[in-house]
């Protein structure tokens, strides 16, 4: 026991107990220092920076309420719907636990979308934080899977038919599609087999993956340090002790700050749970109060609100739209071959590749390309760190017109979301198509538009007013 820290026998009981642990688990104490009391975060965080901690809180809420729900829920097609009503009526306080879980699911997406938007605003995905962003996108993908599988569990009409439609999307994959869908379902249609495996994934498999990814996400962040609304690297200006001049220890400053944010969040969260748990049919869909009926599809199926932007994009890719996309592919290939100075071999590859892609687009159903678009819309986020070529990270110092572009992006995303909740109409279809083109254009053309305009001078120290 050579490395043990000695403590005076006159020390208090608490000090001795702390010392006992510190000698046997020094890592815990080091972790506390590295991640809390000596993690120097920029002092100019604004309210956009609370959503990360709130996301972690919602994850904990979902896990705890989930544990208690599983005590009473029955993952059996004949018993599932009844078991949820059992929880709502017969289990003491079961209704509260259920509403917390259903509201928590929607709250998770609200918080995560806002958290991602902060990243967009301040360039948090830029070097050296690309990996933080990539882990985050992986979390987003897992979260969508987790929510999708969780939604099947109440075994209502919306649960059943939503799952049926989305799993059937996989049949669009060329050659392996129908077998793939069969493998996912475990049966010819969504049924008891599907319910049981989705239950297993939703309760244990995906949550474990999510927890692992969250740990990786935070470790990657803490290793390089947090970004801030001004987009400047605070580690560039340190004092003589090696502490960033614009940094403050996370604990206690951001712990108390986050406690306040948590209280405000809990007020909104509780207001929904206690006064409007259905939230106009967006958080608890009305059709889901009808037990699943494999023989009768409801008139109007829509995914839950947080999937609707991507659902709009899926529906927008009709055979007509595929022709538009072919034109885009041809145009992009032609433009890059003509405009850029590239070695001949690379030009040949681009042209060849374009020919192959166009051939595929002409021969494979629009249904498949809809799936590609829907998936691509999420996958493209992974590439953001390499698409953004603006010399400046934060929106504060970018050319002013970038602000309007981001505003339009948000509006279009919201419009796509709304359109996804509604039944398809001719006008809606055109709008979704335009919205989808804008969404992909925003990202794919970013290497070009992010270079346009004159950035404002970036300060060396953060903007902070004492309060």
């Amino acid at each position, binding site marked *: 026991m050579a490395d043990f820290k000695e403590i005076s026998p006159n020390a208090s009981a608490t000090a001795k107990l702390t010392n006992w642990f510190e000698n046997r688990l020094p890592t815990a104490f080091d972790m506390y220092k590295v991640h809390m009391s000596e993690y120097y975060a920029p*002092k100019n965080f604004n309210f956009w920076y609370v959503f990360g901690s709130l996301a972690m809180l919602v994850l904990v809420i979902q896990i705890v309420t989930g544990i208690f729900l599983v005590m009473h829920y029955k993952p059996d097609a004949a018993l599932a719907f*009844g078991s949820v*009503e*059992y929880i*709502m*009526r*017969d289990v003491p306080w079961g*209704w*509260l636990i259920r*509403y917390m879980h259903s509201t928590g699911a929607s709250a998770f997406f609200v918080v995560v979308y806002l958290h991602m938007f902060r990243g967009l605003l301040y360039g948090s995905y830029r070097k050296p934080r690309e990996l933080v962003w990539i882990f985050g996108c992986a979390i987003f993908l897992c979260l969508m899977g987790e929510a999708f599988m969780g939604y099947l569990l109440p075994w209502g009409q919306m649960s059943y038919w939503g799952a049926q439609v989305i799993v059937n999307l996989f049949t669009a994959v060329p050659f392996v599609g129908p077998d793939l869908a069969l493998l996912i379902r475990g049966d010819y249609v969504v049924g008891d087999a599907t319910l049981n495996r989705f239950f297993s994934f939703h309760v244990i498999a995906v949550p474990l993956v999510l927890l692992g990814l969250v740990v990786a996400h935070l470790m990657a962040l803490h290793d390089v340090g947090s970004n801030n609304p001004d987009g400047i690297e605070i580690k560039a200006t340190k004092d003589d002790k090696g502490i960033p001049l614009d940094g*403050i220890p996370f604990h*206690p*400053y951001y712990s*108390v*700050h986050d*406690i*306040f944010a*948590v*209280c*405000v969040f*809990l*007020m909104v969260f*509780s*207001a929904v*749970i*206690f*006064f409007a*748990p*259905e939230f*106009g*049919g967006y958080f608890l869909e*009305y*059709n*889901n*109060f*009808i*037990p699943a009926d494999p023989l009768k599809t409801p*008139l109007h199926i829509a995914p839950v609100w947080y999937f609707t932007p991507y659902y709009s994009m899926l529906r927008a890719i009709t055979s007509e739209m595929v022709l538009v996309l072919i034109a885009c592919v041809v145009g992009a290939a032609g433009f890059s071959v003509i405009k850029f100075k590239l070695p001949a071999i690379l030009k040949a590859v681009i042209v060849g590749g374009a020919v192959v892609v166009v051939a595929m687009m002409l021969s494979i159903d629009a249904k498949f390309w809809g799936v590609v678009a829907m998936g691509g819309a999420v996958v493209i986020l992974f590439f953001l760190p390499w698409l953004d070529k603006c010399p400046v990270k934060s929106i504060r110092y970018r050319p002013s017109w970038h602000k*309007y572009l981001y505003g*339009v992006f948000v*509006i279009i995303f919201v*419009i796509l979301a*709304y*359109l996804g909740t*509604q*039944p398809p*109409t001719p*006008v*809606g279809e055109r*709008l979704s198509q335009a919205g989808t083109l804008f969404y992909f254009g925003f990202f794919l053309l970013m290497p070009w538009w992010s270079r346009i305009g004159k950035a404002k001078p970036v300060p060396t120290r953060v903007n*902070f007013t*004492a*309060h």
Partner: protein
Amino acid sequence: MKKILITLLMALGFIAGAHANSGGIAWDKAPDRTNDLAALQNGAKLFANYCLNCHSAAFMRFNRLKDIGLTEQQIKDNLLFTNAKVGDTMKAAIDPKQAKDWFGANPPDLTVIARSRSAQGQGTGADYLYTYLRTYFVDDTKPTGWDNLAFPSVGMPHALWELQGKRVPVYETVTEHGHEAHVFKGWEQLTPGTMTAEQYDQAVGDLVSYMQWMSEPVKNTRIRVGFGVMVFLLFMTFIAWRLNAAYWKDVK
């Protein structure tokens, strides 16, 4: 920039408006008597007498009716018809297979029907049920002899016909937007029921309020607890705010 935004918003408006009622008339607003114990008890009685013959309310326990002011003895005397015990759930009197034979479909369970029938832009499930139970009319061309304005070609007969009597809708031909339209104008009573129109509406209001209560019996408790939680959280947020300020005053 502004023009694009305005066009987009207008397009949204058109879509919302174009989303008309798919089959069935617009719904009347149901009276909310979920805080009126007498109305709820009357509704429970009507439900047990007229609905439980064919429909079940499989997630609703009889003894939960204590929440609307009935004693166990009253429940046993007035609402339990079969060999059910007061702690049992409300099963239908009919055998589901027989029901399917007679009506073509198994009468759906009604426990949460007031929640499932809500529709964005049209009204709550209670509004639908209130309208539905008051828009039945005689139609000999239909297998049950009845049809319904809120649910055209419904497979359910008019369970409350003895109370409302028999009637038919009266239509008027109206020229609208340059073409003729068949517009519903009112009712023609063929044979009277045991209740007047006002009494019937009142009874249906009670029944629908009962069904609304039954779809979420814990609603009033939920709201009450909610008030307490909000008050506590307001207090807690204030403390957290001051705690935050106490630390951040040191940050320059």
